[in-house]
C-alpha cells in the first residue's frame, strides 16, 4: 500500500448528509469491472451525470476548480450503507485522497485505511467553514491535510487538529499491509485454536 503523509489541494464541498456507498459506486460497476482499477469514471455517476449520460453542470464535482479535487468535504454519516470497498476504490480512482466529514459509516471508515485514503472526522461547523473558505476564493484556496501532525490547515491558514487511532496513523504513514502484520502472530492464533477445539468442539466442523 502507498504511504500517506500530507496532501495539499482543492477541497470540493459535497455538503450532503448520509452519502451512501450505493451513491458513490453503483453495484453493477462492481459486477462488470473485475479489478480495483478503472472505477474512477463511475464514481458518483448518479449525481455527476444526467440520465442521458451527459455531465450534470449542477454537480459540484463537475465545476471548476473542484473537478478532480483530492479532498472531499461532506456532512454527517459519509459512506453509510453497503460494505462495498469499491466505494473507496472509485473515490481513489477519481483522485480523492482525503474525505473530511463529521462522521462515517463504520465499514467504509475501515475500508479507507486499507487503501491509503484518509477519512478525517471534524465537527460539522468546521467542515462548513472549510467549505465557505473554499467558496470565498475559488481558484486560489487550498486545504492541507497533514497526517503526521494530525492537523488540517484551512485556506485562510487556520490550523484545525483532528484525532485518529495511533495504530491506523502508523499503518497509513508507513503503508503497512495488515495480513503481513497478523502473520507475525501465527503461533498465538494456533494456540487459541487448539484450546478452543477442546472447549467448543461443535464449532469446528
Amino acid at each position: 500500500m502507498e504511504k500517506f503523509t500530507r496532501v495539499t489541494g482543492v477541497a470540493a464541498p459535497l455538503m450532503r448528509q448520509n452519502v451512501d456507498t450505493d451513491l458513490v459506486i453503483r453495484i453493477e460497476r462492481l459486477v462488470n469491472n473485475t479489478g480495483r482499477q478503472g472505477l474512477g469514471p463511475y464514481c458518483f455517476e448518479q449525481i455527476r451525470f444526467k440520465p442521458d449520460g451527459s455531465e450534470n453542470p449542477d454537480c459540484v464535482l463537475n465545476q471548476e476548480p473542484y473537478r478532480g479535487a483530492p479532498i472531499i468535504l461532506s456532512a454527517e454519516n459519509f459512506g453509510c450503507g453497503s460494505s462495498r470497498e469499491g466505494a473507496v476504490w472509485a473515490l481513489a480512482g477519481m483522485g480523492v485522497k482525503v474525505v473530511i466529514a463529521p462522521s462515517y459509516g463504520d465499514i467504509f471508515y475501515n475500508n479507507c485505511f486499507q487503501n491509503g485514503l484518509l477519512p478525517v472526522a471534524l465537527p460539522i461547523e468546521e467542515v462548513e467553514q472549510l467549505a465557505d473558505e473554499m467558496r470565498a476564493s475559488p481558484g486560489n484556496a487550498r486545504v492541507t491535510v497533514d497526517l503526521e501532525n494530525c492537523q488540517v490547515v484551512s485556506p485562510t491558514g487556520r490550523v484545525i487538529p483532528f484525532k485518529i487511532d495511533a495504530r491506523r496513523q502508523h499503518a497509513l504513514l508507513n503503508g503497512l499491509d495488515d495480513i503481513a502484520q497478523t502473520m507475525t502472530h501465527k503461533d498465538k492464533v494456533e494456540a487459541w485454536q487448539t484450546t478452543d477445539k477442546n472447549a467448543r468442539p461443535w464449532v469446528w466442523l
Partner: protein
Amino acid sequence: MARTLFDKIWDSHVITDLGNGFVLLHIDRLLLHDLSGARALRDVTEKGYTPAQPRLIYATPDHAISTMPGRTEETFPPGAPLLRGLRENTKKFGIHLFDIGKDGNGIVHIVGPEQGLTLPGTTLVCGDSHTCTHGGMGSLAFGIGSSELEHVLATQTMVQRKPKRFRVQFEGKVPEGVTAKDMILHLIGDLGTAAGTGHAVEYAGSAVRGLAVEGRLTLCNLSIEMGARTGMVAPDDTTFEYLAGRDFSPKGAMWDRAVAHWRTLPSDPDADFDREHTIDMARVAPQITWGTSPEHVIAVDRAIPDPDRGPEDKRAAWTAALQYQGLEPGKPIEGTKVDWVFIGSCTNSRISDLRAAAAIAKGRQKAPHVNAWIVPGSERVKREAEAEGLDRIFKDAGFEWREPGCSMCIASNGERVPPGQRSVSTSNRNFVGRQGPGARTHLASPAMAAAAAIKGAIADVRKL
C-alpha cells in the same frame, strides 16, 4: 464483573491485544457470496496466501445470478464468470459451496441460520453489510470490506476495535399488523441512520423475547441501517428449538454440550450498556418509508412529511428526497399509486414472510397495473413454500414466483425497477437508485407489500 452478551462473545474470541484499543479476534465462520467472496478468494490467492481454515468457510452465489424461473448461470451473463471463479476456487481449497439449484443455496444471510451454520456464541463475518442479520441467532456478526475479507481468508482472524454497547428494549404487546420489520423501521425513524455508529446493539425486551427466530433475524438485518456495527438477540429456547436438527447444527451429546454453553451467553442482569433506549410497542404501527433513507419512515396512516416543518438540518435532504420520490408533502401516503411490488431479500424472504404475504394474497387478485414478484430467500424456503402450496396462492393472485437470490433488492443481476416507477419492497434500502437508476422505493413488511400489490397503491394492511 457483570458482562453483556456482546462482551462474553468478544472476550472469548480475543487472541491477543494489539495495543491502542485494537485486538486480534478469532473468526469462527466466514461466508462468501458471488460478488465480494469470489473476488476476494481470487485476489488473496494471487497475493500468495491460501485460505487458513477452509472448513470454517461456506460459499453461496446470490447477488449476480438471475432469479428468472428456469434460470441457469448464463441467464445473467455478467455474473457467470464470477460464479465460475467461485466454483473453481472453492473446489481447489476444499470450501463448501451451495451451488445454484441445489439444496442449501440462497441469499447468504438466509442460508447461514437455515443450515445451522450460524450458531450462538460464534463470531461470523461476510463481505456484506447485512451480515448483522446473523446476530438474531445470538452470534457476533460483522459485515466487512474486501481487504478485511482477504485478511480473514488468509488468517481466520480480524483486527478489530471494540464497539460500544447499546441496548434497545421493545416492551409491551405487539399491536395488530405490526411485524419485526415495523419494529426496526420505527426504531430507525426514531433515532436516525447514524444512531448506532460505533455500537453493537442488543435487542431485548418482552416483544423481542416473543419474536420467533425469523423475526429476530429481520430485526437484526436492519441494524446497519442505523449505522450499528452489528445487532444481536440473546439466545434462548426459541433459538435452540429453531437450530435443533438443522444440517450443520451439532448433534447428540455435542448438542447438549453446546446448549449448556449457549445458556451462559445472555447478558447478566446487572450488566452495563453505554447507551439504552426503550420503545413502547403501543406506539408502533405498520411502517412505510417515504424518502431515500431508511430513517425517512412513517406509520402508514400518516401524512407525507413537510420539510418546512422538519428539523432544520434535515430540510435540504427531505426536499431532495421528496423530489426524487415524486411525492407531495402533507398528503396521506396511503393511496399512493404503486407500479412494482418486490417480496424478497435477506430482510424478509423466509418462510414465515412468505406465509404472511400469502395470507393477504389468498383468494385475491393483484391490481392489473402492478408487477408483483415473490423471490424466496433460498432453495430450502422455495421448496418448503411449494410443499405448502404458497406458490399456487401467489400465482393465482397474479404474482410471479421466482428462483432464490438477491434480485431486485440491489439490482446487481439486471433485475430492476424502471426509472421513475414506484416500488413497495420488503428489502432494507431505499437509497437513490438502489433498485435501479431512478427507481422509487418504499420499504415495508411482507404483508404491507402484498397489500400494496392487491390495492395497486400503498395500503394499510389492517384495513384489508
